[in-house]
Protein backbone atom coordinates (compact mmCIF):
# COMPACT_ATOMS: atom_id res chain seq x y z
CA UNK A 1 0.00 0.00 0.00
CA UNK A 2 1.41 3.38 -0.87
CA UNK A 3 1.93 6.05 1.72
CA UNK A 4 0.33 9.45 1.31
CA UNK A 5 1.49 12.69 2.78
CA UNK A 6 -0.61 13.64 5.76
CA UNK A 7 -1.95 17.01 6.79
CA UNK A 8 -0.83 19.65 9.23
CA UNK A 9 -0.84 17.18 12.11
CA UNK A 10 1.60 14.90 10.30
CA UNK A 11 4.01 12.95 12.48
CA UNK A 12 7.19 11.39 11.29
CA UNK A 13 7.65 7.67 11.68
CA UNK A 14 9.76 7.87 14.82
CA UNK A 15 7.36 10.28 16.52
CA UNK A 16 4.39 8.09 15.68
CA UNK A 17 6.19 4.98 16.90
CA UNK A 18 7.05 6.67 20.18
CA UNK A 19 3.48 7.83 20.66
CA UNK A 20 2.23 4.33 19.87
CA UNK A 21 4.55 2.87 22.50
CA UNK A 22 3.31 5.34 25.09
CA UNK A 23 -0.28 4.70 24.09
CA UNK A 24 0.23 0.94 24.37
CA UNK A 25 1.24 1.48 27.98
CA UNK A 26 -2.01 3.33 28.66
CA UNK A 27 -1.20 6.94 27.77
CA UNK A 28 -4.43 8.31 26.30
CA UNK A 29 -2.82 11.69 25.57
CA UNK A 30 -0.36 9.99 23.25
CA UNK A 31 -3.19 8.13 21.59
CA UNK A 32 -5.11 11.38 21.14
CA UNK A 33 -2.10 12.79 19.28
CA UNK A 34 -2.14 9.74 17.01
CA UNK A 35 -5.86 10.21 16.53
CA UNK A 36 -5.41 13.87 15.56
CA UNK A 37 -2.73 12.99 13.04
CA UNK A 38 -4.73 10.22 11.42
CA UNK A 39 -8.41 11.02 11.76
CA UNK A 40 -8.62 12.89 8.45
CA UNK A 41 -7.41 9.93 6.43
CA UNK A 42 -9.37 7.36 8.37
CA UNK A 43 -12.58 9.35 8.15
CA UNK A 44 -12.04 9.91 4.42
CA UNK A 45 -11.64 6.16 3.94
CA UNK A 46 -14.77 5.39 5.98
CA UNK A 47 -16.82 8.08 4.25
CA UNK A 48 -15.84 7.00 0.76
CA UNK A 49 -16.35 3.33 1.56
CA UNK A 50 -19.81 3.87 3.03
CA UNK A 51 -21.09 7.12 1.43
CA UNK A 52 -22.87 7.76 4.70
CA UNK A 53 -21.78 10.42 7.18
CA UNK A 54 -23.25 8.84 10.33
CA UNK A 55 -21.90 5.41 9.48
CA UNK A 56 -18.51 6.86 8.60
CA UNK A 57 -18.32 8.69 11.94
CA UNK A 58 -19.25 5.56 13.83
CA UNK A 59 -16.79 3.42 11.91
CA UNK A 60 -14.02 5.95 12.44
CA UNK A 61 -14.60 5.79 16.16
CA UNK A 62 -14.75 2.01 16.09
CA UNK A 63 -11.51 1.87 14.11
CA UNK A 64 -9.64 3.95 16.68
CA UNK A 65 -11.08 1.95 19.56
CA UNK A 66 -10.03 -1.26 17.82
CA UNK A 67 -6.58 0.20 17.23
CA UNK A 68 -6.29 1.08 20.92
CA UNK A 69 -7.17 -2.50 21.83
CA UNK A 70 -4.63 -3.88 19.36
CA UNK A 71 -1.78 -1.46 20.05
CA UNK A 72 0.34 -4.21 21.54
CA UNK A 73 0.39 -5.89 18.12
CA UNK A 74 1.87 -2.79 16.46
CA UNK A 75 5.56 -3.56 16.22
CA UNK A 76 6.75 -0.31 14.69
CA UNK A 77 8.07 -2.05 11.59
CA UNK A 78 5.41 -0.28 9.52
CA UNK A 79 4.26 3.31 9.62
CA UNK A 80 1.60 3.77 12.26
CA UNK A 81 -0.65 5.46 9.69
CA UNK A 82 -0.37 2.43 7.40
CA UNK A 83 -1.16 0.07 10.25
CA UNK A 84 -4.04 2.27 11.41
CA UNK A 85 -5.37 2.40 7.88
CA UNK A 86 -5.39 -1.38 7.69
CA UNK A 87 -7.22 -1.62 11.00
CA UNK A 88 -9.84 0.83 9.70
CA UNK A 89 -10.29 -1.02 6.41
CA UNK A 90 -10.84 -4.23 8.35
CA UNK A 91 -13.37 -2.56 10.62
CA UNK A 92 -15.30 -1.12 7.69
CA UNK A 93 -15.35 -4.33 5.69
CA UNK A 94 -16.21 -6.59 8.60
CA UNK A 95 -19.00 -4.28 9.73
CA UNK A 96 -20.40 -4.01 6.23
CA UNK A 97 -20.33 -7.74 5.71
CA UNK A 98 -22.26 -8.12 8.95
CA UNK A 99 -24.98 -5.77 7.84
CA UNK A 100 -24.94 -6.64 4.15
CA UNK A 101 -28.47 -7.94 4.15
CA UNK A 102 -29.89 -4.80 5.74
CA UNK A 103 -28.03 -2.58 3.33
CA UNK A 104 -29.33 -4.43 0.29
CA UNK A 105 -32.76 -3.11 1.11
CA UNK A 106 -31.60 0.50 1.03
CA UNK A 107 -28.73 0.41 -1.45
CA UNK A 108 -30.51 2.56 -3.97
CA UNK A 109 -31.41 5.27 -1.52
CA UNK A 110 -29.23 8.30 -1.98
CA UNK A 111 -27.66 9.57 1.23
CA UNK A 112 -28.18 13.31 1.04
CA UNK A 113 -26.15 13.91 4.16
CA UNK A 114 -23.06 12.58 2.40
CA UNK A 115 -23.49 14.96 -0.51
CA UNK A 116 -24.09 17.83 1.86
CA UNK A 117 -20.83 16.95 3.58
CA UNK A 118 -18.90 16.76 0.34
CA UNK A 119 -20.49 19.93 -0.92
CA UNK A 120 -19.40 21.87 2.14
CA UNK A 121 -15.77 21.45 1.25
CA UNK A 122 -14.11 24.63 0.13
CA UNK A 123 -12.51 23.07 -2.94
CA UNK A 124 -15.81 22.19 -4.56
CA UNK A 125 -15.05 21.33 -8.18
CA UNK A 126 -14.17 18.27 -10.18
CA UNK A 127 -13.05 16.41 -7.05
CA UNK A 128 -16.50 16.83 -5.55
CA UNK A 129 -18.10 15.51 -8.72
CA UNK A 130 -15.83 12.52 -8.53
CA UNK A 131 -16.63 11.93 -4.86
CA UNK A 132 -20.34 12.12 -5.66
CA UNK A 133 -19.93 9.70 -8.53
CA UNK A 134 -17.98 7.33 -6.30
CA UNK A 135 -20.76 7.50 -3.72
CA UNK A 136 -23.25 6.33 -6.31
CA UNK A 137 -21.26 3.26 -7.33
CA UNK A 138 -22.58 -0.17 -6.33
CA UNK A 139 -21.21 -1.04 -2.93
CA UNK A 140 -18.63 -3.67 -3.74
CA UNK A 141 -17.37 -1.83 -6.82
CA UNK A 142 -17.05 1.31 -4.72
CA UNK A 143 -15.11 -0.47 -2.00
CA UNK A 144 -12.65 -1.96 -4.47
CA UNK A 145 -12.26 1.36 -6.31
CA UNK A 146 -11.61 3.28 -3.09
CA UNK A 147 -9.08 0.76 -1.82
CA UNK A 148 -7.28 0.32 -5.14
CA UNK A 149 -7.40 3.64 -6.95
CA UNK A 150 -7.56 6.02 -4.00
CA UNK A 151 -5.84 4.23 -1.15
CA UNK A 152 -3.26 2.34 -3.18
CA UNK A 153 -3.92 -1.23 -2.05
CA UNK A 154 -2.99 -4.10 -4.37
CA UNK A 155 -5.54 -6.57 -5.71
CA UNK A 156 -4.25 -9.40 -3.54
CA UNK A 157 -4.47 -7.22 -0.42
CA UNK A 158 -8.02 -6.19 -1.25
CA UNK A 159 -8.98 -9.76 -2.04
CA UNK A 160 -7.65 -10.86 1.35
CA UNK A 161 -9.44 -8.05 3.16
CA UNK A 162 -12.75 -8.63 1.41
CA UNK A 163 -12.60 -12.40 1.28
CA UNK A 164 -12.94 -12.51 -2.49
CA UNK A 165 -10.78 -13.82 -5.34
CA UNK A 166 -8.26 -11.40 -6.91
CA UNK A 167 -10.03 -11.92 -10.23
CA UNK A 168 -13.31 -10.75 -8.69
CA UNK A 169 -11.50 -7.74 -7.34
CA UNK A 170 -10.19 -6.85 -10.80
CA UNK A 171 -13.63 -7.29 -12.32
CA UNK A 172 -15.18 -5.00 -9.71
CA UNK A 173 -12.52 -2.38 -10.35
CA UNK A 174 -13.15 -2.56 -14.08
CA UNK A 175 -16.87 -2.15 -13.46
CA UNK A 176 -16.33 0.78 -11.11
CA UNK A 177 -14.13 2.62 -13.58
CA UNK A 178 -16.59 2.10 -16.40
CA UNK A 179 -19.48 3.37 -14.31
CA UNK A 180 -17.48 6.37 -13.16
CA UNK A 181 -16.50 7.24 -16.68
CA UNK A 182 -20.11 7.01 -17.78
CA UNK A 183 -21.24 9.15 -14.87
CA UNK A 184 -18.65 11.83 -15.49
CA UNK A 185 -19.33 11.86 -19.23
CA UNK A 186 -23.01 12.17 -18.51
CA UNK A 187 -22.46 15.14 -16.21
CA UNK A 188 -20.10 16.89 -18.65
Amino acid at each position, binding site marked *: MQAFATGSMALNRAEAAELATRAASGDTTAFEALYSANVGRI*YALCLRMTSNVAEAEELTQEAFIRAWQKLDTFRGTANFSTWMHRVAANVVLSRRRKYARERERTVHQEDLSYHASVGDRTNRSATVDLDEAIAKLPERAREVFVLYD*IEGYQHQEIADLMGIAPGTCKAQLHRARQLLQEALNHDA
Partner: protein
Amino acid sequence: MTHDELNDEIKNRLDELPREIQPERNLWSDIETAIADSKIMRPDFKSERVTPPAGKATVIERAAVNWQRVGVIAAAAMLLVAFSSGITAYLVRVPAVPADGIVEPQRTEFETVAWEGFLAAERSYQSVTDELLAELDAQREELLPETVEIVEENLRLIDDAITRAREALELDPANTRLVNKLTGMYRTKVEFLEGMSRL
Protein backbone atom coordinates in the same frame (compact mmCIF):
# COMPACT_ATOMS: atom_id res chain seq x y z
CA MET B 1 -9.14 -1.60 -18.96
CA THR B 2 -6.16 -1.95 -16.61
CA HIS B 3 -4.81 0.39 -13.99
CA ASP B 4 -2.43 1.87 -16.56
CA GLU B 5 -5.32 2.43 -18.91
CA LEU B 6 -7.28 4.33 -16.30
CA ASN B 7 -9.15 7.07 -18.04
CA ASP B 8 -7.03 10.22 -17.99
CA GLU B 9 -9.88 12.34 -16.80
CA ILE B 10 -10.56 10.09 -13.83
CA LYS B 11 -6.87 9.79 -13.14
CA ASN B 12 -6.43 13.55 -13.08
CA ARG B 13 -9.39 13.97 -10.79
CA LEU B 14 -8.09 11.21 -8.53
CA ASP B 15 -4.82 13.07 -8.18
CA GLU B 16 -6.75 16.13 -6.99
CA LEU B 17 -8.93 14.19 -4.59
CA PRO B 18 -8.21 15.15 -0.96
CA ARG B 19 -6.66 12.29 0.96
CA GLU B 20 -8.05 13.66 4.18
CA ILE B 21 -11.55 14.77 5.14
CA GLN B 22 -12.10 16.07 8.63
CA PRO B 23 -15.30 14.87 10.33
CA GLU B 24 -17.83 17.59 11.01
CA ARG B 25 -18.11 16.75 14.67
CA ASN B 26 -15.60 15.86 17.34
CA LEU B 27 -15.29 12.07 17.43
CA TRP B 28 -12.59 11.94 20.07
CA SER B 29 -14.72 12.30 23.22
CA ASP B 30 -16.61 9.06 22.57
CA ILE B 31 -13.38 7.27 21.72
CA GLU B 32 -11.78 8.55 24.91
CA THR B 33 -14.69 7.28 26.98
CA ALA B 34 -14.59 3.89 25.30
CA ILE B 35 -10.87 3.40 25.71
CA ALA B 36 -11.07 4.46 29.35
CA ASP B 37 -13.50 1.58 29.86
CA SER B 38 -11.28 -0.84 27.95
CA LYS B 39 -8.24 0.01 30.06
CA ILE B 40 -9.76 -1.74 33.06
CA MET B 41 -7.51 -4.58 34.11
CA ARG B 42 -8.19 -7.55 36.28
CA PRO B 43 -5.58 -8.21 38.95
CA ASP B 44 -4.46 -11.81 38.86
CA PHE B 45 -4.70 -12.80 42.49
CA LYS B 46 -4.08 -16.47 41.81
CA SER B 47 -0.67 -15.83 40.33
CA GLU B 48 0.36 -14.12 43.54
CA ARG B 49 -0.72 -16.97 45.79
CA VAL B 50 2.09 -18.55 47.78
CA THR B 51 2.24 -21.58 50.01
CA PRO B 52 1.78 -20.39 53.59
CA PRO B 53 3.67 -21.72 56.56
CA ALA B 54 1.73 -24.47 58.34
CA GLY B 55 -1.26 -23.11 60.22
CA LYS B 56 -1.10 -19.63 58.71
CA ALA B 57 -3.15 -18.14 55.91
CA THR B 58 -1.55 -16.07 53.17
CA VAL B 59 -2.39 -12.42 52.80
CA ILE B 60 -4.47 -13.25 49.76
CA GLU B 61 -6.39 -16.00 51.49
CA ARG B 62 -7.25 -13.70 54.37
CA ALA B 63 -8.34 -11.09 51.89
CA ALA B 64 -10.52 -13.55 50.05
CA VAL B 65 -12.43 -14.34 53.22
CA ASN B 66 -12.94 -10.68 54.04
CA TRP B 67 -14.00 -9.87 50.53
CA GLN B 68 -17.02 -12.11 50.78
CA ARG B 69 -18.68 -9.08 52.27
CA VAL B 70 -17.90 -7.26 49.04
CA GLY B 71 -20.05 -9.74 47.12
CA VAL B 72 -23.07 -8.93 49.25
CA ILE B 73 -22.68 -5.21 48.74
CA ALA B 74 -21.99 -5.61 45.03
CA ALA B 75 -25.23 -7.56 44.69
CA ALA B 76 -27.06 -4.63 46.24
CA ALA B 77 -25.30 -2.30 43.84
CA MET B 78 -26.50 -4.43 40.95
CA LEU B 79 -30.07 -3.78 42.02
CA LEU B 80 -29.41 -0.08 41.91
CA VAL B 81 -27.92 -0.36 38.46
CA ALA B 82 -31.04 -2.20 37.39
CA PHE B 83 -33.00 0.76 38.73
CA SER B 84 -30.77 3.12 36.77
CA SER B 85 -31.53 1.09 33.67
CA GLY B 86 -35.19 1.62 34.44
CA ILE B 87 -34.58 5.34 34.41
CA THR B 88 -32.86 4.92 31.08
CA ALA B 89 -35.85 3.15 29.67
CA TYR B 90 -38.02 5.92 31.06
CA LEU B 91 -35.93 8.58 29.35
CA VAL B 92 -35.97 6.68 26.09
CA ARG B 93 -39.69 7.21 26.01
CA VAL B 94 -39.27 10.99 26.08
CA PRO B 95 -41.34 12.18 23.14
CA ALA B 96 -39.30 13.43 20.23
CA VAL B 97 -39.30 17.09 19.31
CA PRO B 98 -42.06 17.59 16.73
CA ALA B 99 -41.08 18.26 13.14
CA ASP B 100 -42.19 21.87 13.46
CA GLY B 101 -39.66 22.34 16.25
CA ILE B 102 -42.26 23.33 18.85
CA VAL B 103 -41.55 21.60 22.12
CA GLU B 104 -44.58 20.54 24.11
CA PRO B 105 -44.61 22.09 27.62
CA GLN B 106 -45.05 18.71 29.34
CA ARG B 107 -41.72 17.56 27.95
CA THR B 108 -39.85 19.88 30.31
CA GLU B 109 -41.84 18.54 33.22
CA PHE B 110 -41.17 15.02 32.04
CA GLU B 111 -37.48 15.73 31.81
CA THR B 112 -37.49 17.18 35.29
CA VAL B 113 -39.14 14.09 36.75
CA ALA B 114 -36.77 11.81 34.88
CA TRP B 115 -33.73 13.80 35.95
CA GLU B 116 -34.81 13.76 39.61
CA GLY B 117 -35.40 10.02 39.35
CA PHE B 118 -31.97 9.58 37.93
CA LEU B 119 -30.42 11.65 40.73
CA ALA B 120 -32.23 9.55 43.33
CA ALA B 121 -30.90 6.36 41.78
CA GLU B 122 -27.47 7.83 41.58
CA ARG B 123 -27.52 8.88 45.25
CA SER B 124 -28.47 5.34 46.27
CA TYR B 125 -25.77 3.97 44.05
CA GLN B 126 -23.16 6.29 45.51
CA SER B 127 -24.17 5.36 49.02
CA VAL B 128 -23.57 1.69 48.26
CA THR B 129 -20.30 2.27 46.47
CA ASP B 130 -19.09 4.43 49.35
CA GLU B 131 -19.72 1.53 51.69
CA LEU B 132 -18.03 -0.82 49.29
CA LEU B 133 -15.00 1.40 48.98
CA ALA B 134 -14.79 1.67 52.75
CA GLU B 135 -14.68 -2.12 52.88
CA LEU B 136 -11.90 -2.16 50.34
CA ASP B 137 -10.03 0.46 52.28
CA ALA B 138 -10.26 -1.62 55.41
CA GLN B 139 -8.59 -4.48 53.54
CA ARG B 140 -5.93 -2.30 52.07
CA GLU B 141 -3.15 -3.28 54.46
CA GLU B 142 -3.78 -6.95 53.84
CA LEU B 143 -3.50 -6.76 50.07
CA LEU B 144 -0.36 -6.83 48.02
CA PRO B 145 0.74 -3.34 46.97
CA GLU B 146 0.57 -4.36 43.30
CA THR B 147 -3.03 -5.44 43.74
CA VAL B 148 -3.96 -2.21 45.50
CA GLU B 149 -2.32 -0.25 42.72
CA ILE B 150 -4.29 -2.06 40.01
CA VAL B 151 -7.57 -1.73 41.88
CA GLU B 152 -7.02 1.97 42.50
CA GLU B 153 -6.00 2.65 38.91
CA ASN B 154 -9.08 0.87 37.61
CA LEU B 155 -11.39 2.73 39.96
CA ARG B 156 -9.76 6.01 38.99
CA LEU B 157 -10.32 5.29 35.29
CA ILE B 158 -13.95 4.38 35.85
CA ASP B 159 -14.56 7.42 38.05
CA ASP B 160 -12.95 9.74 35.51
CA ALA B 161 -15.22 8.39 32.80
CA ILE B 162 -18.27 8.70 35.07
CA THR B 163 -17.38 12.27 35.94
CA ARG B 164 -17.09 13.28 32.28
CA ALA B 165 -20.34 11.61 31.30
CA ARG B 166 -22.07 13.02 34.39
CA GLU B 167 -21.02 16.57 33.50
CA ALA B 168 -22.25 16.14 29.95
CA LEU B 169 -25.55 14.69 31.13
CA GLU B 170 -26.12 17.57 33.50
CA LEU B 171 -26.01 19.91 30.52
CA ASP B 172 -28.25 17.68 28.44
CA PRO B 173 -30.47 15.66 30.81
CA ALA B 174 -32.71 14.26 28.08
CA ASN B 175 -29.83 12.80 26.11
CA THR B 176 -30.58 9.10 26.22
CA ARG B 177 -27.23 8.24 24.69
CA LEU B 178 -25.47 9.86 27.61
CA VAL B 179 -27.77 8.17 30.10
CA ASN B 180 -26.97 4.83 28.50
CA LYS B 181 -23.29 5.61 28.58
CA LEU B 182 -23.40 6.64 32.23
CA THR B 183 -25.43 3.62 33.21
CA GLY B 184 -22.93 1.44 31.38
CA MET B 185 -20.10 3.02 33.35
CA TYR B 186 -21.86 2.43 36.63
CA ARG B 187 -22.40 -1.13 35.54
CA THR B 188 -18.73 -1.45 34.69
CA LYS B 189 -17.82 -0.26 38.16
CA VAL B 190 -20.16 -2.71 39.81
CA GLU B 191 -18.95 -5.54 37.61
CA PHE B 192 -15.39 -4.69 38.48
CA LEU B 193 -16.14 -4.73 42.18
CA GLU B 194 -18.17 -7.87 41.77
CA GLY B 195 -15.22 -9.43 39.98
CA MET B 196 -13.05 -8.56 42.95
CA SER B 197 -15.46 -10.33 45.27
CA ARG B 198 -15.24 -13.52 43.24
CA LEU B 199 -11.48 -13.72 43.34
